Protein backbone atom coordinates (compact mmCIF):
# COMPACT_ATOMS: atom_id res chain seq x y z
CA UNK A 1 0.00 0.00 0.00
CA UNK A 2 2.94 2.23 0.65
CA UNK A 3 3.44 2.29 -3.09
CA UNK A 4 -0.12 2.07 -4.32
CA UNK A 5 -1.34 5.29 -2.79
CA UNK A 6 1.48 7.40 -4.25
CA UNK A 7 0.64 5.92 -7.61
CA UNK A 8 -2.98 6.85 -7.07
CA UNK A 9 -1.88 10.36 -6.19
CA UNK A 10 0.01 10.55 -9.46
CA UNK A 11 -2.96 9.25 -11.42
CA UNK A 12 -5.25 11.80 -9.83
CA UNK A 13 -2.84 14.65 -10.47
CA UNK A 14 -2.44 13.57 -14.07
CA UNK A 15 -6.13 13.26 -14.74
CA UNK A 16 -6.86 16.55 -12.99
CA UNK A 17 -4.29 18.37 -15.04
CA UNK A 18 -5.40 16.67 -18.21
CA UNK A 19 -8.93 17.88 -17.67
CA UNK A 20 -7.81 21.39 -16.77
CA UNK A 21 -5.90 21.62 -20.02
CA UNK A 22 -9.09 21.03 -21.96
CA UNK A 23 -10.97 23.88 -23.51
CA UNK A 24 -14.40 23.03 -22.22
CA UNK A 25 -15.66 24.86 -19.13
CA UNK A 26 -17.14 21.81 -17.56
CA UNK A 27 -13.96 19.84 -17.95
CA UNK A 28 -12.05 22.68 -16.43
CA UNK A 29 -14.15 22.60 -13.31
CA UNK A 30 -13.98 18.79 -13.11
CA UNK A 31 -10.23 19.08 -13.49
CA UNK A 32 -9.99 21.64 -10.71
CA UNK A 33 -11.94 19.41 -8.36
CA UNK A 34 -9.88 16.31 -9.15
CA UNK A 35 -6.67 18.29 -8.85
CA UNK A 36 -7.87 19.40 -5.42
CA UNK A 37 -8.58 15.81 -4.45
CA UNK A 38 -5.11 14.82 -5.58
CA UNK A 39 -3.53 17.59 -3.54
CA UNK A 40 -5.42 16.52 -0.45
CA UNK A 41 -4.47 12.90 -0.89
CA UNK A 42 -0.86 13.91 -1.43
CA UNK A 43 -0.91 15.80 1.85
CA UNK A 44 -2.36 12.77 3.56
CA UNK A 45 0.02 10.25 2.06
CA UNK A 46 3.14 12.25 2.57
CA UNK A 47 2.37 12.68 6.27
CA UNK A 48 2.92 8.89 6.57
CA UNK A 49 0.14 6.36 6.87
CA UNK A 50 -0.97 4.34 9.84
CA UNK A 51 -3.39 1.63 9.00
CA UNK A 52 -6.45 1.37 11.19
CA UNK A 53 -5.47 3.36 14.26
CA UNK A 54 -7.16 6.69 14.57
CA UNK A 55 -5.87 9.79 16.26
CA UNK A 56 -8.25 9.48 19.16
CA UNK A 57 -7.11 8.82 22.69
CA UNK A 58 -8.84 5.84 24.18
CA UNK A 59 -11.31 6.41 26.97
CA UNK A 60 -9.23 4.69 29.62
CA UNK A 61 -5.93 6.48 29.14
CA UNK A 62 -4.87 10.09 29.17
CA UNK A 63 -1.93 9.82 26.84
CA UNK A 64 -2.13 8.35 23.37
CA UNK A 65 -0.02 5.30 22.90
CA UNK A 66 1.65 4.24 19.67
CA UNK A 67 0.70 3.25 17.13
CA UNK A 68 -1.73 6.04 16.46
CA UNK A 69 -2.24 8.03 13.32
CA UNK A 70 -0.44 11.34 13.08
CA UNK A 71 -3.13 13.91 13.79
CA UNK A 72 -1.23 16.79 12.20
CA UNK A 73 -1.70 15.89 8.52
CA UNK A 74 -5.30 15.08 9.29
CA UNK A 75 -5.92 18.46 10.83
CA UNK A 76 -4.19 20.19 7.95
CA UNK A 77 -6.14 18.09 5.53
CA UNK A 78 -9.43 19.01 7.15
CA UNK A 79 -8.65 22.67 6.87
CA UNK A 80 -7.44 22.23 3.32
CA UNK A 81 -10.53 20.30 2.27
CA UNK A 82 -12.81 22.98 3.64
CA UNK A 83 -10.87 25.79 2.04
CA UNK A 84 -10.79 23.85 -1.19
CA UNK A 85 -14.53 23.44 -1.01
CA UNK A 86 -15.02 27.18 -0.64
CA UNK A 87 -12.88 27.89 -3.64
CA UNK A 88 -14.34 25.12 -5.75
CA UNK A 89 -17.88 26.20 -5.01
CA UNK A 90 -16.97 29.69 -6.07
CA UNK A 91 -15.32 28.35 -9.21
CA UNK A 92 -18.38 26.31 -10.15
CA UNK A 93 -20.61 29.35 -9.86
CA UNK A 94 -18.09 31.45 -11.73
CA UNK A 95 -18.08 28.99 -14.60
CA UNK A 96 -21.82 29.01 -14.66
CA UNK A 97 -21.88 32.81 -14.79
CA UNK A 98 -19.31 32.91 -17.55
CA UNK A 99 -21.38 30.51 -19.58
CA UNK A 100 -24.43 32.64 -18.93
CA UNK A 101 -22.69 35.86 -19.88
CA UNK A 102 -20.76 34.73 -22.91
CA UNK A 103 -22.98 31.96 -24.22
CA UNK A 104 -19.98 29.84 -25.07
CA UNK A 105 -18.44 26.81 -23.52
CA UNK A 106 -15.07 27.15 -25.16
CA UNK A 107 -12.32 28.66 -23.06
CA UNK A 108 -10.51 29.74 -26.20
CA UNK A 109 -13.24 32.26 -26.82
CA UNK A 110 -12.21 34.08 -23.68
CA UNK A 111 -9.10 35.75 -24.96
CA UNK A 112 -10.22 39.34 -25.18
CA UNK A 113 -8.86 40.90 -22.03
CA UNK A 114 -5.37 39.68 -22.80
CA UNK A 115 -5.22 41.24 -26.21
CA UNK A 116 -3.42 44.50 -26.63
CA UNK A 117 -6.36 45.93 -28.51
CA UNK A 118 -9.59 44.85 -26.99
CA UNK A 119 -11.96 44.73 -29.89
CA UNK A 120 -15.05 43.01 -28.74
CA UNK A 121 -15.33 44.20 -25.20
CA UNK A 122 -16.36 47.77 -25.53
CA UNK A 123 -13.97 49.62 -23.35
CA UNK A 124 -15.33 51.23 -20.29
CA UNK A 125 -17.75 48.39 -19.99
CA UNK A 126 -16.24 47.46 -16.72
CA UNK A 127 -16.67 50.81 -15.24
CA UNK A 128 -19.96 51.83 -16.71
CA UNK A 129 -21.66 51.43 -13.42
CA UNK A 130 -19.22 53.35 -11.36
CA UNK A 131 -20.40 56.72 -12.27
CA UNK A 132 -23.08 57.30 -9.72
CA UNK A 133 -22.45 59.22 -6.63
Amino acid at each position, binding site marked *: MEILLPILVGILFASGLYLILHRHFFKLILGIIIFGLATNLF*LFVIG*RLTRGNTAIIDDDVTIASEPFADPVPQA*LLLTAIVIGFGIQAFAIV*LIKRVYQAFGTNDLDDLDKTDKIHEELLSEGN*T*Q*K*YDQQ*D
Partner: protein
Amino acid sequence: MQHILLVLPLLIPLYGAIACLFFWRKLGVQRVIGVVTQLSLCAASAYLLYKTDTTGILTTQIGNWQAPFGITLVSDIFSSLMVLSSAIVGIAVFVFSLRGLSNARQLFGYYPLLLLLQMGVNGVCLTGDLFNLFVWFEVLLICCFVLIALGGSKPQLEGSIKYVTINFLASSFLLTGIGMVYGILGSLNMAELAVLVRSAEANHGLITLASIFFLVAFGIKAAIFPLFFWLPASYHTPPIGISAFIAGLITKVGLYALVRLFTLVFVLNQDILLPIFLVLSGLTMVIGVLGAASQVDFRKILSFHIVSQIGYMLMGLAIFTPMAIAGSIYFVIHNILVKTCLFLISGVVYRTYGSFALKKLGGVYLQQPLLSLLFVIAAFSLAGIPPFSGFWGKFMLAKGGLEAGNYGLVATSLGVSLITIFSMTKIWNEVFWKKKPAPTEEAARVIAEANTAHIGVLRLLHLPVVVLIVCILFIGLYAEPLVNLALRASEQLLNTESYVNAVLHK
Protein backbone atom coordinates in the same frame (compact mmCIF):
# COMPACT_ATOMS: atom_id res chain seq x y z
CA MET B 1 1.02 43.97 25.55
CA GLN B 2 2.62 42.34 22.57
CA HIS B 3 -0.06 39.66 22.59
CA ILE B 4 -2.65 42.29 21.82
CA LEU B 5 -0.45 44.28 19.51
CA LEU B 6 0.24 41.34 17.25
CA VAL B 7 -3.33 40.21 16.84
CA LEU B 8 -4.75 43.68 16.36
CA PRO B 9 -3.91 43.79 12.64
CA LEU B 10 -5.95 40.61 12.31
CA LEU B 11 -8.75 41.36 14.71
CA ILE B 12 -9.49 44.95 13.75
CA PRO B 13 -10.35 44.12 10.15
CA LEU B 14 -12.05 40.91 11.19
CA TYR B 15 -14.36 42.65 13.62
CA GLY B 16 -14.87 45.45 11.14
CA ALA B 17 -15.93 42.90 8.56
CA ILE B 18 -18.21 41.12 11.01
CA ALA B 19 -19.84 44.42 11.90
CA CYS B 20 -20.28 45.21 8.21
CA LEU B 21 -21.89 41.81 7.70
CA PHE B 22 -24.35 42.51 10.48
CA PHE B 23 -25.36 45.66 8.62
CA TRP B 24 -25.38 43.91 5.29
CA ARG B 25 -27.91 46.18 3.64
CA LYS B 26 -26.97 49.46 5.28
CA LEU B 27 -24.33 51.16 3.20
CA GLY B 28 -24.09 54.23 5.41
CA VAL B 29 -23.36 52.19 8.50
CA GLN B 30 -20.81 50.11 6.63
CA ARG B 31 -18.98 53.22 5.54
CA VAL B 32 -18.82 54.53 9.07
CA ILE B 33 -17.54 51.17 10.28
CA GLY B 34 -15.06 51.21 7.44
CA VAL B 35 -13.66 54.60 8.38
CA VAL B 36 -13.28 53.65 12.01
CA THR B 37 -11.71 50.30 11.18
CA GLN B 38 -9.29 51.63 8.60
CA LEU B 39 -8.10 54.42 10.84
CA SER B 40 -7.63 52.20 13.85
CA LEU B 41 -5.91 49.56 11.72
CA CYS B 42 -3.51 52.16 10.49
CA ALA B 43 -2.82 53.39 14.01
CA ALA B 44 -2.34 49.85 15.29
CA SER B 45 0.04 49.00 12.46
CA ALA B 46 2.05 52.13 12.98
CA TYR B 47 2.35 51.36 16.66
CA LEU B 48 3.32 47.78 15.84
CA LEU B 49 6.11 49.04 13.62
CA TYR B 50 7.24 51.45 16.29
CA LYS B 51 7.30 48.72 18.91
CA THR B 52 9.05 46.24 16.65
CA ASP B 53 11.57 48.85 15.73
CA THR B 54 12.35 49.81 19.28
CA THR B 55 12.14 46.50 21.14
CA GLY B 56 13.10 43.97 18.51
CA ILE B 57 11.18 41.00 17.19
CA LEU B 58 7.78 40.57 18.83
CA THR B 59 6.06 37.22 19.15
CA THR B 60 2.87 35.82 20.53
CA GLN B 61 2.01 32.16 20.83
CA ILE B 62 -1.61 31.88 19.80
CA GLY B 63 -3.58 29.79 22.26
CA ASN B 64 -0.68 29.96 24.68
CA TRP B 65 0.88 26.83 23.21
CA GLN B 66 4.64 26.67 23.12
CA ALA B 67 6.24 27.56 19.85
CA PRO B 68 6.52 24.57 17.57
CA PHE B 69 3.21 23.15 18.77
CA GLY B 70 0.86 26.05 18.37
CA ILE B 71 0.84 28.88 15.91
CA THR B 72 3.19 31.78 16.44
CA LEU B 73 2.66 35.28 15.24
CA VAL B 74 5.92 37.06 14.68
CA SER B 75 6.56 40.63 13.81
CA ASP B 76 9.95 41.73 12.63
CA ILE B 77 10.69 44.95 10.83
CA PHE B 78 9.95 43.61 7.39
CA SER B 79 6.58 42.18 8.32
CA SER B 80 5.48 45.21 10.29
CA LEU B 81 6.53 47.45 7.43
CA MET B 82 4.35 45.39 5.14
CA VAL B 83 1.46 45.60 7.56
CA LEU B 84 1.78 49.35 7.84
CA SER B 85 2.02 49.98 4.14
CA SER B 86 -0.95 47.74 3.47
CA ALA B 87 -2.90 49.72 6.04
CA ILE B 88 -1.98 53.01 4.38
CA VAL B 89 -2.94 51.70 0.99
CA GLY B 90 -6.12 50.35 2.52
CA ILE B 91 -7.16 53.78 3.74
CA ALA B 92 -6.43 55.34 0.38
CA VAL B 93 -8.40 52.77 -1.54
CA PHE B 94 -11.22 52.93 0.97
CA VAL B 95 -11.57 56.69 0.60
CA PHE B 96 -11.41 56.40 -3.16
CA SER B 97 -14.10 53.75 -3.20
CA LEU B 98 -16.54 55.93 -1.29
CA ARG B 99 -17.15 57.84 -4.50
CA GLY B 100 -15.22 55.88 -7.07
CA LEU B 101 -17.18 52.65 -6.92
CA SER B 102 -20.80 52.09 -7.83
CA ASN B 103 -23.23 51.69 -4.97
CA ALA B 104 -24.35 48.37 -6.37
CA ARG B 105 -20.89 46.94 -5.90
CA GLN B 106 -20.51 48.53 -2.51
CA LEU B 107 -23.77 46.95 -1.44
CA PHE B 108 -22.63 43.46 -2.33
CA GLY B 109 -20.05 43.16 0.35
CA TYR B 110 -17.28 45.38 -0.93
CA TYR B 111 -16.37 46.75 2.48
CA PRO B 112 -16.27 43.47 4.40
CA LEU B 113 -14.35 41.89 1.55
CA LEU B 114 -11.81 44.67 1.54
CA LEU B 115 -11.36 44.31 5.27
CA LEU B 116 -11.02 40.56 5.14
CA LEU B 117 -8.50 40.95 2.35
CA GLN B 118 -6.49 43.23 4.59
CA MET B 119 -6.79 40.67 7.34
CA GLY B 120 -5.43 38.03 5.01
CA VAL B 121 -2.52 40.21 4.02
CA ASN B 122 -1.69 40.98 7.62
CA GLY B 123 -2.00 37.32 8.49
CA VAL B 124 0.48 36.33 5.80
CA CYS B 125 2.91 38.95 6.96
CA LEU B 126 2.68 38.18 10.65
CA THR B 127 2.40 34.44 10.81
CA GLY B 128 5.35 32.32 11.78
CA ASP B 129 3.80 29.04 10.77
CA LEU B 130 3.93 27.47 7.36
CA PHE B 131 0.43 26.09 7.20
CA ASN B 132 -1.02 29.18 8.74
CA LEU B 133 0.65 31.07 5.94
CA PHE B 134 -1.27 28.93 3.51
CA VAL B 135 -4.53 29.63 5.30
CA TRP B 136 -4.03 33.38 5.23
CA PHE B 137 -3.07 33.18 1.63
CA GLU B 138 -6.32 31.46 0.90
CA VAL B 139 -8.24 34.12 2.81
CA LEU B 140 -6.53 36.73 0.74
CA LEU B 141 -7.04 34.85 -2.49
CA ILE B 142 -10.70 34.13 -2.12
CA CYS B 143 -11.25 37.80 -1.30
CA CYS B 144 -9.39 38.67 -4.48
CA PHE B 145 -11.45 36.17 -6.46
CA VAL B 146 -14.66 37.66 -5.23
CA LEU B 147 -13.53 41.25 -5.60
CA ILE B 148 -12.25 40.75 -9.12
CA ALA B 149 -15.52 39.18 -10.14
CA LEU B 150 -17.65 41.59 -8.10
CA GLY B 151 -20.19 43.06 -10.46
CA GLY B 152 -19.92 40.29 -13.02
CA SER B 153 -19.23 42.34 -16.11
CA LYS B 154 -17.84 40.43 -19.04
CA PRO B 155 -14.19 41.43 -18.82
CA GLN B 156 -14.27 40.77 -15.10
CA LEU B 157 -15.62 37.28 -15.61
CA GLU B 158 -13.06 36.55 -18.27
CA GLY B 159 -10.26 37.79 -16.07
CA SER B 160 -11.50 35.89 -13.04
CA ILE B 161 -11.56 32.55 -14.82
CA LYS B 162 -7.85 32.81 -15.50
CA TYR B 163 -7.11 34.33 -12.14
CA VAL B 164 -9.01 31.65 -10.26
CA THR B 165 -7.66 28.67 -12.18
CA ILE B 166 -4.03 29.65 -12.10
CA ASN B 167 -4.10 30.77 -8.49
CA PHE B 168 -5.86 27.58 -7.57
CA LEU B 169 -2.94 25.71 -9.05
CA ALA B 170 -0.59 27.90 -7.06
CA SER B 171 -2.43 27.09 -3.87
CA SER B 172 -2.22 23.41 -4.69
CA PHE B 173 1.52 23.66 -5.18
CA LEU B 174 1.80 25.51 -1.91
CA LEU B 175 -0.17 22.86 -0.13
CA THR B 176 1.85 20.03 -1.61
CA GLY B 177 4.98 21.92 -0.67
CA ILE B 178 3.82 22.26 2.90
CA GLY B 179 2.99 18.57 2.93
CA MET B 180 6.49 17.78 1.73
CA VAL B 181 8.09 19.98 4.35
CA TYR B 182 6.10 18.28 7.06
CA GLY B 183 6.85 14.91 5.53
CA ILE B 184 10.57 15.63 5.54
CA LEU B 185 11.11 17.64 8.69
CA GLY B 186 8.07 16.94 10.83
CA SER B 187 7.37 20.50 11.78
CA LEU B 188 5.48 23.51 10.51
CA ASN B 189 6.85 26.28 12.66
CA MET B 190 9.14 28.34 10.48
CA ALA B 191 11.62 29.05 13.24
CA GLU B 192 11.90 25.40 14.11
CA LEU B 193 12.20 24.55 10.44
CA ALA B 194 15.05 27.01 10.22
CA VAL B 195 16.80 25.13 12.99
CA LEU B 196 16.05 21.69 11.56
CA VAL B 197 17.21 22.65 8.10
CA ARG B 198 20.54 23.81 9.43
CA SER B 199 21.10 20.70 11.53
CA ALA B 200 23.53 18.04 10.45
CA GLU B 201 20.94 15.40 9.58
CA ALA B 202 18.97 17.59 7.22
CA ASN B 203 18.43 15.99 3.84
CA HIS B 204 19.62 18.75 1.56
CA GLY B 205 18.37 17.28 -1.66
CA LEU B 206 14.83 16.74 -0.46
CA ILE B 207 14.58 20.15 1.18
CA THR B 208 15.76 21.86 -1.97
CA LEU B 209 13.23 19.83 -3.90
CA ALA B 210 10.51 21.02 -1.55
CA SER B 211 11.66 24.58 -1.98
CA ILE B 212 10.89 24.34 -5.69
CA PHE B 213 7.24 23.77 -4.81
CA PHE B 214 7.27 27.01 -2.83
CA LEU B 215 9.15 28.80 -5.52
CA VAL B 216 6.52 27.89 -8.08
CA ALA B 217 3.60 28.53 -5.75
CA PHE B 218 4.74 31.95 -4.60
CA GLY B 219 6.21 32.62 -8.00
CA ILE B 220 2.73 32.37 -9.44
CA LYS B 221 1.30 34.57 -6.73
CA ALA B 222 4.09 37.10 -7.11
CA ALA B 223 3.77 36.99 -10.92
CA ILE B 224 7.28 35.93 -11.80
CA PHE B 225 8.07 35.06 -15.39
CA PRO B 226 7.02 32.57 -16.75
CA LEU B 227 4.23 32.20 -14.21
CA PHE B 228 2.67 35.64 -14.42
CA PHE B 229 0.05 35.18 -17.12
CA TRP B 230 -2.92 35.56 -14.86
CA LEU B 231 -1.92 39.07 -13.88
CA PRO B 232 -2.15 41.00 -17.13
CA ALA B 233 -5.26 39.01 -17.96
CA SER B 234 -7.17 40.06 -14.91
CA TYR B 235 -5.80 43.07 -13.08
CA HIS B 236 -7.26 45.66 -15.34
CA THR B 237 -10.74 44.19 -15.47
CA PRO B 238 -12.35 45.22 -12.17
CA PRO B 239 -13.15 48.81 -11.25
CA ILE B 240 -10.24 50.90 -10.08
CA GLY B 241 -11.30 50.88 -6.45
CA ILE B 242 -10.72 47.14 -6.49
CA SER B 243 -7.83 46.72 -8.86
CA ALA B 244 -5.81 49.48 -7.22
CA PHE B 245 -5.73 47.61 -3.96
CA ILE B 246 -5.16 44.19 -5.44
CA ALA B 247 -2.56 45.40 -7.91
CA GLY B 248 -0.78 47.44 -5.32
CA LEU B 249 -0.56 44.79 -2.71
CA ILE B 250 -1.12 41.17 -3.58
CA THR B 251 1.86 40.30 -5.72
CA LYS B 252 4.10 41.93 -3.15
CA VAL B 253 2.63 39.69 -0.50
CA GLY B 254 3.63 36.72 -2.61
CA LEU B 255 7.07 38.17 -2.86
CA TYR B 256 7.13 38.76 0.86
CA ALA B 257 6.48 35.08 1.44
CA LEU B 258 9.20 34.19 -1.03
CA VAL B 259 11.73 36.42 0.70
CA ARG B 260 10.70 35.18 4.12
CA LEU B 261 10.98 31.51 3.28
CA PHE B 262 14.09 31.69 1.18
CA THR B 263 15.97 33.66 3.77
CA LEU B 264 14.73 31.73 6.78
CA VAL B 265 14.14 28.14 5.75
CA PHE B 266 15.30 27.27 2.26
CA VAL B 267 18.87 28.39 2.52
CA LEU B 268 20.45 25.11 1.48
CA ASN B 269 21.98 24.50 -1.93
CA GLN B 270 22.07 28.16 -2.72
CA ASP B 271 24.45 27.42 -5.54
CA ILE B 272 21.47 25.88 -7.31
CA LEU B 273 18.71 28.17 -6.14
CA LEU B 274 20.31 31.57 -6.55
CA PRO B 275 21.14 31.13 -10.24
CA ILE B 276 17.52 30.15 -10.79
CA PHE B 277 16.43 33.34 -9.06
CA LEU B 278 18.94 35.31 -11.04
CA VAL B 279 17.63 34.10 -14.37
CA LEU B 280 14.01 34.43 -13.32
CA SER B 281 14.41 37.93 -12.01
CA GLY B 282 16.19 39.14 -15.11
CA LEU B 283 13.59 37.60 -17.40
CA THR B 284 10.74 38.89 -15.28
CA MET B 285 12.04 42.43 -15.48
CA VAL B 286 12.59 42.33 -19.19
CA ILE B 287 9.42 40.54 -20.25
CA GLY B 288 7.30 42.65 -17.94
CA VAL B 289 8.64 45.93 -19.16
CA LEU B 290 8.40 44.87 -22.80
CA GLY B 291 4.81 43.93 -22.19
CA ALA B 292 4.20 47.32 -20.65
CA ALA B 293 5.85 49.09 -23.56
CA SER B 294 3.57 47.38 -26.02
CA GLN B 295 0.29 48.19 -24.32
CA VAL B 296 -2.06 50.99 -25.28
CA ASP B 297 -4.30 51.05 -22.24
CA PHE B 298 -3.54 53.05 -19.10
CA ARG B 299 -4.28 50.24 -16.70
CA LYS B 300 -2.67 47.53 -18.78
CA ILE B 301 0.60 49.41 -18.88
CA LEU B 302 0.44 49.65 -15.14
CA SER B 303 -0.42 45.97 -14.83
CA PHE B 304 2.51 44.81 -16.88
CA HIS B 305 4.76 47.09 -14.92
CA ILE B 306 3.89 45.15 -11.81
CA VAL B 307 5.48 42.11 -13.40
CA SER B 308 8.57 44.04 -14.30
CA GLN B 309 8.96 45.43 -10.83
CA ILE B 310 8.52 42.05 -9.25
CA GLY B 311 11.69 41.21 -11.12
CA TYR B 312 13.48 43.97 -9.27
CA MET B 313 12.24 42.71 -5.94
CA LEU B 314 13.33 39.21 -6.80
CA MET B 315 16.72 40.58 -7.78
CA GLY B 316 17.54 41.26 -4.14
CA LEU B 317 16.82 37.68 -3.29
CA ALA B 318 18.92 36.47 -6.18
CA ILE B 319 21.91 38.52 -5.08
CA PHE B 320 21.40 37.62 -1.45
CA THR B 321 23.52 40.22 0.29
CA PRO B 322 22.22 42.46 3.08
CA MET B 323 22.31 45.52 0.84
CA ALA B 324 20.45 43.82 -2.00
CA ILE B 325 17.77 42.37 0.23
CA ALA B 326 17.34 45.76 1.85
CA GLY B 327 16.89 47.09 -1.65
CA SER B 328 14.18 44.55 -2.28
CA ILE B 329 12.44 45.48 0.93
CA TYR B 330 12.58 49.15 0.13
CA PHE B 331 11.37 48.43 -3.36
CA VAL B 332 8.42 46.41 -2.10
CA ILE B 333 7.21 49.18 0.17
CA HIS B 334 7.81 51.85 -2.43
CA ASN B 335 6.04 49.85 -5.07
CA ILE B 336 2.98 49.17 -2.95
CA LEU B 337 2.45 52.88 -2.49
CA VAL B 338 3.35 54.01 -5.99
CA LYS B 339 1.45 51.35 -7.84
CA THR B 340 -1.73 51.93 -5.88
CA CYS B 341 -1.33 55.62 -6.44
CA LEU B 342 -0.93 55.24 -10.19
CA PHE B 343 -3.96 53.00 -10.42
CA LEU B 344 -5.98 55.54 -8.46
CA ILE B 345 -4.80 58.28 -10.81
CA SER B 346 -5.96 56.22 -13.75
CA GLY B 347 -9.28 55.95 -11.93
CA VAL B 348 -9.54 59.71 -11.53
CA VAL B 349 -8.69 60.17 -15.19
CA TYR B 350 -11.33 57.67 -16.17
CA ARG B 351 -13.80 59.29 -13.89
CA THR B 352 -13.40 62.63 -15.60
CA TYR B 353 -12.67 61.60 -19.19
CA GLY B 354 -14.43 58.32 -19.58
CA SER B 355 -11.73 56.11 -20.97
CA PHE B 356 -8.61 54.15 -20.25
CA ALA B 357 -7.48 53.84 -23.84
CA LEU B 358 -4.53 56.06 -24.53
CA LYS B 359 -5.72 57.07 -27.95
CA LYS B 360 -9.01 58.33 -26.63
CA LEU B 361 -7.48 60.40 -23.87
CA GLY B 362 -5.59 63.62 -23.90
CA GLY B 363 -5.38 67.13 -22.64
CA VAL B 364 -5.41 66.36 -18.95
CA TYR B 365 -2.30 68.50 -18.59
CA LEU B 366 -4.24 71.64 -19.32
CA GLN B 367 -7.39 70.79 -17.49
CA GLN B 368 -6.06 69.21 -14.32
CA PRO B 369 -2.68 70.64 -13.43
CA LEU B 370 -2.73 69.15 -9.96
CA LEU B 371 -3.41 65.66 -11.22
CA SER B 372 -0.68 66.06 -13.80
CA LEU B 373 1.80 67.01 -11.13
CA LEU B 374 0.75 64.05 -9.02
CA PHE B 375 1.12 61.74 -11.98
CA VAL B 376 4.56 63.05 -12.84
CA ILE B 377 5.75 62.43 -9.32
CA ALA B 378 4.28 58.95 -9.18
CA ALA B 379 5.44 57.99 -12.65
CA PHE B 380 8.99 59.14 -12.13
CA SER B 381 9.03 57.48 -8.75
CA LEU B 382 8.10 54.27 -10.46
CA ALA B 383 10.76 54.77 -13.09
CA GLY B 384 13.30 55.28 -10.35
CA ILE B 385 14.40 58.80 -11.19
CA PRO B 386 16.01 60.52 -8.26
CA PRO B 387 15.23 61.98 -5.86
CA PHE B 388 11.93 60.13 -5.95
CA SER B 389 11.40 56.94 -4.04
CA GLY B 390 12.09 54.38 -6.76
CA PHE B 391 15.64 55.57 -7.04
CA TRP B 392 16.63 54.44 -3.60
CA GLY B 393 15.43 50.91 -4.13
CA LYS B 394 17.15 50.76 -7.47
CA PHE B 395 20.27 52.22 -5.98
CA MET B 396 20.46 49.69 -3.19
CA LEU B 397 19.81 46.82 -5.56
CA ALA B 398 22.38 48.02 -8.04
CA LYS B 399 24.90 48.62 -5.30
CA GLY B 400 24.31 45.21 -3.79
CA GLY B 401 24.53 43.61 -7.21
CA LEU B 402 27.76 45.31 -8.13
CA GLU B 403 29.32 44.48 -4.81
CA ALA B 404 28.40 40.86 -5.34
CA GLY B 405 29.72 40.93 -8.88
CA ASN B 406 26.40 40.38 -10.64
CA TYR B 407 27.18 42.85 -13.38
CA GLY B 408 24.87 41.35 -15.96
CA LEU B 409 21.81 41.53 -13.76
CA VAL B 410 22.57 45.09 -12.68
CA ALA B 411 22.99 46.13 -16.28
CA THR B 412 19.69 44.48 -17.14
CA SER B 413 17.96 46.24 -14.30
CA LEU B 414 19.30 49.63 -15.33
CA GLY B 415 18.34 49.01 -18.94
CA VAL B 416 14.88 47.95 -17.90
CA SER B 417 14.44 51.10 -15.93
CA LEU B 418 15.10 53.07 -19.10
CA ILE B 419 12.22 51.27 -20.82
CA THR B 420 10.18 51.92 -17.71
CA ILE B 421 10.80 55.61 -18.20
CA PHE B 422 9.77 55.16 -21.78
CA SER B 423 6.45 53.55 -21.01
CA MET B 424 5.66 56.01 -18.24
CA THR B 425 6.29 58.91 -20.60
CA LYS B 426 4.06 57.13 -23.07
CA ILE B 427 1.19 57.57 -20.66
CA TRP B 428 2.24 61.11 -19.92
CA ASN B 429 2.51 61.87 -23.60
CA GLU B 430 -0.80 60.41 -24.59
CA VAL B 431 -2.97 61.14 -21.62
CA PHE B 432 -1.61 64.42 -20.37
CA TRP B 433 0.27 66.23 -23.09
CA LYS B 434 -1.53 65.21 -26.23
CA LYS B 435 -4.51 67.23 -27.40
CA LYS B 436 -7.77 65.64 -26.56
CA PRO B 437 -9.33 63.77 -29.45
CA ALA B 438 -13.06 64.08 -29.99
CA PRO B 439 -14.73 62.01 -27.30
CA THR B 440 -16.63 58.86 -28.09
CA GLU B 441 -20.26 58.52 -27.18
CA GLU B 442 -19.50 56.60 -24.03
CA ALA B 443 -16.82 59.02 -22.99
CA ALA B 444 -19.02 61.99 -23.72
CA ARG B 445 -21.67 60.61 -21.44
CA VAL B 446 -19.21 60.01 -18.65
CA ILE B 447 -17.71 63.45 -19.05
CA ALA B 448 -21.12 65.03 -18.98
CA GLU B 449 -21.87 63.13 -15.82
CA ALA B 450 -18.58 64.09 -14.30
CA ASN B 451 -19.22 67.72 -15.07
CA THR B 452 -22.54 67.63 -13.37
CA ALA B 453 -21.06 65.82 -10.41
CA HIS B 454 -20.46 67.81 -7.34
CA ILE B 455 -17.00 69.29 -7.18
CA GLY B 456 -16.60 67.71 -3.76
CA VAL B 457 -16.76 64.30 -5.36
CA LEU B 458 -13.71 65.00 -7.44
CA ARG B 459 -11.94 66.42 -4.45
CA LEU B 460 -12.69 63.22 -2.57
CA LEU B 461 -11.24 61.22 -5.43
CA HIS B 462 -8.11 63.32 -5.39
CA LEU B 463 -7.68 63.03 -1.66
CA PRO B 464 -6.30 59.47 -1.50
CA VAL B 465 -3.97 60.18 -4.40
CA VAL B 466 -2.61 63.20 -2.59
CA VAL B 467 -2.16 61.22 0.60
CA LEU B 468 -0.23 58.51 -1.21
CA ILE B 469 1.89 61.06 -3.04
CA VAL B 470 2.79 62.63 0.26
CA CYS B 471 3.93 59.23 1.51
CA ILE B 472 5.88 58.62 -1.70
CA LEU B 473 7.54 62.00 -1.50
CA PHE B 474 8.37 61.39 2.11
CA ILE B 475 10.09 58.09 1.50
CA GLY B 476 11.80 59.58 -1.53
CA LEU B 477 12.95 62.97 -0.39
CA TYR B 478 13.62 61.90 3.14
CA ALA B 479 14.66 58.37 2.42
CA GLU B 480 16.79 57.83 5.48
CA PRO B 481 14.12 56.40 7.83
CA LEU B 482 12.88 53.82 5.39
CA VAL B 483 16.34 53.00 4.06
CA ASN B 484 17.53 52.50 7.56
CA LEU B 485 14.55 50.32 8.41
CA ALA B 486 15.07 48.30 5.25
CA LEU B 487 18.72 47.78 6.03
CA ARG B 488 17.96 46.65 9.53
CA ALA B 489 15.10 44.50 8.30
CA SER B 490 17.40 42.72 5.90
CA GLU B 491 19.93 42.21 8.65
CA GLN B 492 17.18 40.66 10.71
CA LEU B 493 16.22 38.44 7.80
CA LEU B 494 19.73 37.22 7.19
CA ASN B 495 20.56 36.85 10.84
CA THR B 496 18.04 34.09 11.42
CA GLU B 497 19.22 33.45 14.95
CA SER B 498 17.38 36.44 16.33
CA TYR B 499 14.19 35.22 14.70
CA VAL B 500 14.64 31.69 15.96
CA ASN B 501 15.47 32.87 19.46
CA ALA B 502 12.50 35.16 19.59
CA VAL B 503 10.12 32.42 18.56
CA LEU B 504 11.50 29.34 20.24
CA HIS B 505 13.27 30.45 23.37
CA LYS B 506 11.10 33.04 24.93
